[in-house]
């Protein structure tokens, strides 16, 4: 068993962060939508690893089960059920890319501002507690956050009914 020295943890964090970024860039730059989806898998899987490194082991596994295993399949189905001639338009004018850059820059500025100005409960200097998180999550879900937990169920119910209604209408 390797002792998680600070250098090793930091090294793996930056490795996976770099992979996630590379995947994200691939998503944007890939010519075919299907390739974008495969790059997205890379990003999502690296994010799972990042979660684990940050001490959120349960969330890491959830990330793999839900995002890598389920959402990706949904996206791939969506792509495969779309006829091929609806590929992304090759280039659609300067106006569109300018708008894209503007929106991306705006989102970047807003999120960076939020991250920098927020008061985080834990700072960089305090180490992450190295213990399993599943039990703590369960305790929270069924005592303090019981109401949001049930609300999640209602949300899922709405999503399911909505999906069926939309799919029915299209037929």
């Amino acid at each position, binding site marked *: 068993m*390797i002792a998680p020295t600070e250098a090793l943890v930091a090294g793996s964090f930056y490795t996976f962060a770099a992979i996630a970024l590379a995947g994200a860039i691939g998503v944007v730059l890939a010519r075919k939508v299907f390739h974008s989806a*495969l790059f997205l*898998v890379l990003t999502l899987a690296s994010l799972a690893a990042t979660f684990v490194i940050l001490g959120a*082991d349960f969330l890491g596994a959830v990330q*793999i089960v839900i995002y*890598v295993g389920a959402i990706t*399949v949904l996206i*791939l189905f969506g792509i*495969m059920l779309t006829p091929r001639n609806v590929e992304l338009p090759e280039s659609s004018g300067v106006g569109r890319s300018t708008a894209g850059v503007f929106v991306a820059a705006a989102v970047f500025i807003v999120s960076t501002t939020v991250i920098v100005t927020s008061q985080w409960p834990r700072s960089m200097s305090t180490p992450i507690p190295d213990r399993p998180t*599943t039990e703590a999550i369960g305790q929270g879900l069924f005592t303090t956050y019981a109401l949001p937990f049930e609300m999640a169920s209602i949300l899922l119910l709405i999503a399911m009914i909505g999906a069926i209604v939309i799919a029915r209408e299209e037929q």
Partner: protein
Amino acid sequence: MNCPTDNFICNPFLYFHLAANAIFRDHLPEPLGTIIVLALTVAMVTTLIALIVMSQVWAERRIVGFMQGRLGPNRVGPAGLLQSVADAVKLLLKEIIIPTQADKIPFMLAPLLVLVPSLVVWSIIPWGPGLSVTDLNIGVLFVLGLGGIPTIGILTAGWASSNKYALLGGMRAAAQLIAYEIPLVIVVLVPVLLAGTMSLGGIVEAQSNLWFLFFLPVGPVAFLLFLVAGIAEVNRSPFDLPEAESEIVAGFHTEYSGMPFALFFLAEYANSFAVSAMTTTLFLGGWGGPILPPFIWFFLKTYAVFFVLVWIRGTLPRLRYDQLMRTAWKVALPLALVTLGVAAIELSLIRSLLG
């Protein structure tokens, strides 16, 4: 049998481990030595699994041959034992045909997406007390996550081949895999609930008195559901519709030849064996058993489950696609939820009765 990992009978890898530590760990700076030892250990487990899987291809062909009143492979080596080796060499020497219209990189990536999870899963399945490469406290969930990744590989194979049969096979396979993944995920909660942990080692230890298979009345139902959903997850007969040769040639791997095909094949058997091992771990007490060393018990039980899989293949005809989907969505899913509910109520009752 009480078995410490520093006992040779209990830990067949003891000398390997000691030797690897003596060579690398004592002479190289940390963490380099540890990383090399870890790499060697994982490589050894992976190679061992690949060899076991090859022996299983032979075993399955012999057993199915016997069940169908024919001989099966019996020419290469004693009783045909080397047939799988011959097949592997043959496939290695075959041309890798990549269709002109295929999307080359995803086409070659797809077999890896299917193979890698089926090998990685062996790093967390315990062969004995403390005898796994690593014991994750979220083990069960991680195994389920790994089980979801081949769906992406199969869809990629179907899409990148640019072949109608492959595309149809890929879609079929993916729809089947996701349909059976839900009852699988829910029914796996039964052992987790009974053991109170997601660690595979912890689940085995929780069964030291009573296998979860015999936790009446939910145990047998959960066990059967897990086995059925597991068989469907690895595309084995009678759930082998994604590669139904009478309808869609070979399904998603129609265009695959040579080594890429061999990787799909290896992954399929590694997955079948992993399902057998998970059934053993979750319901049949894992490595637990009297007299014999734990890892022998683990393999005895896993092979027994694998034999049942082969038996089912030799017995049952392939399902029709609408039957397959109906079974998953309208039978397996509600049954899994009911099983889980009954297990939870039963556990509460037992707890309140015992105070």
